């Protein structure tokens, strides 16, 4: 125990790493036990559905190219 304490209190970096290790361990164990869900990067869009239709995309591209061509002419 004394050896571990000496190792942890060796310098500022060991104290930081030990503290963060305990912190993360507690968070992960509690998160796993209580089943906290991963919600942070769920990009749910409640406003509209985005459906990308390749055929429509191609039509749009052709229309725009046609428009640019007419502008050049």
């Amino acid at each position: 125990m004394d050896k571990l304490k000496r190792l942890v209190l060796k310098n500022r970096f060991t104290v930081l790493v030990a503290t963060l290790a305990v912190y993360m361990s507690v968070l992960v164990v509690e998160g796993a036990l209580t089943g906290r869900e991963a919600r942070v990067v769920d990009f749910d869009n409640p406003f509209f559905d985005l459906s990308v239709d390749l055929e429509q995309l191609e039509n749009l591209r052709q229309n725009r190219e046609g428009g640019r061509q007419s502008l050049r002419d």
Partner: protein
Amino acid sequence: MNNGQLRQFLALVRREVLEHPSLFIGAPAILGALLAIGSLWVLSMLPSEEIALGVEYLSILFDGLSPLQMAPMFMLLAVPFIIVLFVCGIVYLLNTLFQDRKDGSVLFWQSMPVSNLSTVLAKVVTLGAVVPVFYIATLFVLYIFTTIQLTILGFNYGVEVAGLGYMLGAAVVSLLLVYLSALAGTLWLLPSIGWILLFSAFARRTPLLWAIGVFILFGFLEDFVFGSQFLANWVESRSDPSRYLITEFSSILSRFFNYEMLFGVLVGAILIAGAVYMRRFID
């Protein structure tokens, strides 16, 4: 804690207040003065009929109502003060242990019979329990000023102003709710407080960058290596103000004593313990 230790702790708290008067007393005083000047300016722009109508409306609205029921309404007026307290709190936490090492005062305090634990705890108690008192005192002065202002206007325009007494009562009761919310907020955000204190004690320079940088790095590494997001989810779960704002007296106990609050205190205590041990390393 015996009498001597208590006096020593109170002296440490007093030292924190005296060392940061601009954050703890100056900031709310300036905000209060700006709001008072702003209200005078707005009143000077309004036509007298509208002012008379407004004072009469307020007086009738609050007349005879229980201050306990109307108090939550006045918590909205405290929002600018809560935001300023939040910002000043972050600035204070980032600088407090860092500045102690930078100006060498840590050497003096460590030569005194004061433990690192007492010093760090005094900082947390100062921020969570003492500083809100200054903000609330400023709000109290502002409410008194506004009530006097409205009463004078009411007398000028011959409006019945008895209801303004009830309004002041509700405003004063709301200050208690604001203070309890500040206490609950400190406990709820104790992990964040501990995190900032840890890096304030650790960093040789720019503690803010260390605190943010390590958090992002840990979040990224956790997601990249383990594919989990416990850290990010944890922070997200602590970022909802409705979990610690107390808007009615019946919810006080449930706000302070629930699983997530107590677990947050435990996690905060781990980080604060790290800051206490870190304080033994002086540049």
